[in-house]
């Protein structure tokens, strides 16, 4: 709800939301200039857990740095590794077996669901509802168990390798994934009844924080932030990579531009991801998961390469400038939330603080991913 009263810039106070605040989900600080409960001005301060991944990328060899990618975003780790391995494979000309690509797509989509489920729970908790978080975590647990069984870890998977995968999936995984799909669909019905249809929930989000497509474009927003504003942009469709062209899925787009639209996009995405997983399991070919020839140390011909992928949080890009050496000359990680968070400052002006925090929740922030 925008401010119906005239704001008084001369009678304001500064409110520091964060670095430790329940709504920021990490160490994010927003310096808000408030007039009562209305925000006059906001300045986001980030960088509290900046780890300089890009410098590490320059100092480590390609395969050593691969592990860092899954530490960027602890909720959707696989998507980030996927972008990196795709880039290096493209640049160094490594062939990937088809089975490996299918398994990558399946695991990335599982990871996307896990990430969206966590976001769903945390978002509803931001709005004051506690129980959906627990239900979402319970469903997410099935995914983590599945992924743990094949990758060996629960959050920071380090599962992909240049040219393929670290481990093949087994029949248990496939059976578990098949069991998971109908169970998740039932849960989605429950979530829609419990949360989406709830009048209090709808009233809190409808018309809150409208983001015009123009703002999205100026800030380079992606993921549900763009798709909730009527922009049909999904890297999986716009720039098809990996085996995504093989799958039949839709990109949910909502035109309301408000926080509820962003929520609806993510909820619809879970269902689309389920469709992808279902098709992936049906189509999963046999064969090796790594190239026949064992790869030696990877070298990339000199040049400038870019690869974008659609992670759970939006369009993640890796830019590699190579000089032909063992380590990248420059490795830039374009994180999607960085751009999505950036538009918060401009868009939250004139909002009530509780709406602004609901808006912040709808952006799906993972702070380590912003700070890198």
């Amino acid at each position, binding site marked *: 709800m925008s401010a119906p009263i005239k704001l008084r810039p001369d009678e304001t106070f500064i409110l520091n939301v964060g670095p430790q605040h329940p709504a920021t989900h990490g160490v994010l600080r927003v310096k808000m200039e408030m007039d009562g409960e209305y925000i006059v001005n906001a300045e986001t301060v980030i960088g509290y857990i900046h780890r300089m991944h890009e410098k590490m990328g320059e100092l480590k060899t390609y395969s050593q740095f691969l592990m860092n990618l899954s530490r960027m975003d602890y909720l959707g780790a696989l998507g980030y590794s996927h972008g990196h391995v795709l880039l290096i494979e493209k640049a160094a000309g490594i062939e990937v077996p088809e089975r490996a690509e299918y398994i990558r797509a399946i695991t990335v989509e599982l990871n996307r669901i896990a990430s969206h489920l966590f976001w769903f729970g945390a978002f509803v908790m931001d709005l004051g509802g506690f129980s959906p978080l627990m239900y979402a975590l319970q469903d997410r647990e099935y995914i983590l168990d599945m992924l743990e069984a094949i990758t060996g870890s629960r959050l920071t998977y380090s599962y992909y390798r240049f040219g393929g995968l670290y481990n093949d999936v087994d029949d248990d995984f496939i059976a578990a994934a098949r069991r998971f799909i109908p169970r998740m669909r039932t849960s989605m019905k429950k979530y829609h009844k419990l949360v989406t249809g709830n009048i*209090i929930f709808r009233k809190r989000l409808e018309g809150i924080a409208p983001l015009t497509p123009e703002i999205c474009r100026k800030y380079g927003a992606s993921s549900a932030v763009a798709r909730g504003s009527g922009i049909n942009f999904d890297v999986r469709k716009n720039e098809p990579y990996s085996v995504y062209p093989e799958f039949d899925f839709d990109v949910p787009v909502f035109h309301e531009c408000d926080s509820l639209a962003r929520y609806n996009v993510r909820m619809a995405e879970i269902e689309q991801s389920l469709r992808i997983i279902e098709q992936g399991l049906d189509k999963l070919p046999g064969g090796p998961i790594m190239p026949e020839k064992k790869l030696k140390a990877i070298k990339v011909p000199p040049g400038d390469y870019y690869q974008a992928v659609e992670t759970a949080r939006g369009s993640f890009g890796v830019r590699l400038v190579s000089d032909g050496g063992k380590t990248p000359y420059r490795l830039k990680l374009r994180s999607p939330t960085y751009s999505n968070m950036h538009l918060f400052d401009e868009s939250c002006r004139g909002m009530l603080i509780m709406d602004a925090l609901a808006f912040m929740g709808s952006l799906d922030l993972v702070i380590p991913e912003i700070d890198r």
Partner: protein
Amino acid sequence: MSLTLLNVIVAVIIAIAFAALNAAYLVWAERRGAARIQRRPGPNINGPFGLFQPPLDGVKLMAKQLLIPGGVDKVLFMAAPVLAMAPAITSFVTLPFSDLIVGHNMHIGILLIFAFASIGGMSLLFAGWSSRNKYSMMSSVRAVSQAIAYEIPMLITVITVVMIAGTTDLMGIVKGQMGGFWHWNIFPFKAGLFNPLMLMSFLIFFTCSLAETNRAPFDLGEAESELVAGFHTEYGSMGFGLFFMAEYANIVIGASLTTILFLGGWDCPFGFFPGVWWFLLKIYLLIASFIWIRWTFPRTTIYGLLNLSWKILIPLSLFNLLLTAGLLKVF
């Protein structure tokens, strides 16, 4: 006279004990209930079913240092938790639990309870203002606007009930509803009054008592994801403990009032064996639904809350007031 005074003192002591016991075990019930709803076991380590958890929590709170942050208004800061607890306890004195168990019945009992309830709102204002914390300040302002907005529809529905009963005496209100559930004010099908809208009034009153006690989905004063912990952000140890107890004591009062005004007090639904057990059963059912609601819904916004009060609850309760007045006049 002296006997009455003694009576009141004993009643207050019993009320304190009852309030404290309720607060302690309602916390336990809330934690267990929330856990069950979320498919967890809840506190289950200390004692059977975790039943020793509340006294242990109490010991922990009491053993903690009473911390007063620098720069606070000390007098108000100390007074606020006491001010939150005192009216809650005092209200118990005049609540009739059955036709025999009542501390001190008064002819204006219902007015007394509402007078005390508004002191509770003041304690939140004191706590928030004196804490010298911006979050607390915002929280207290919210709490006060919420208290004002919801006292109006609440009082209007109470006036409706008072009109039906013809008395402000709580005992009298219950006595008017004796004789089975069809006589209760929630669906009054007794001679001379057939008002189908009383169910709506019951819902309005119930909603208002949720809002008055600062419970979810109207817990804007606490709003932990926005205002950290709201008005009690700066309170630790027993200062926090008193706020906590006051909240649960207020819940008990809210449930008791709802029972007395709409659910026939200690009356049995089928007309036999009326007694205090029916009263307790009813209030604990209501409290269970308080807990149930809290763990189901997200929080409303401040404007959503005020809109609900001014645009829906007040017009509807006023309409019912007029309708009831008309019906009473006609029949």
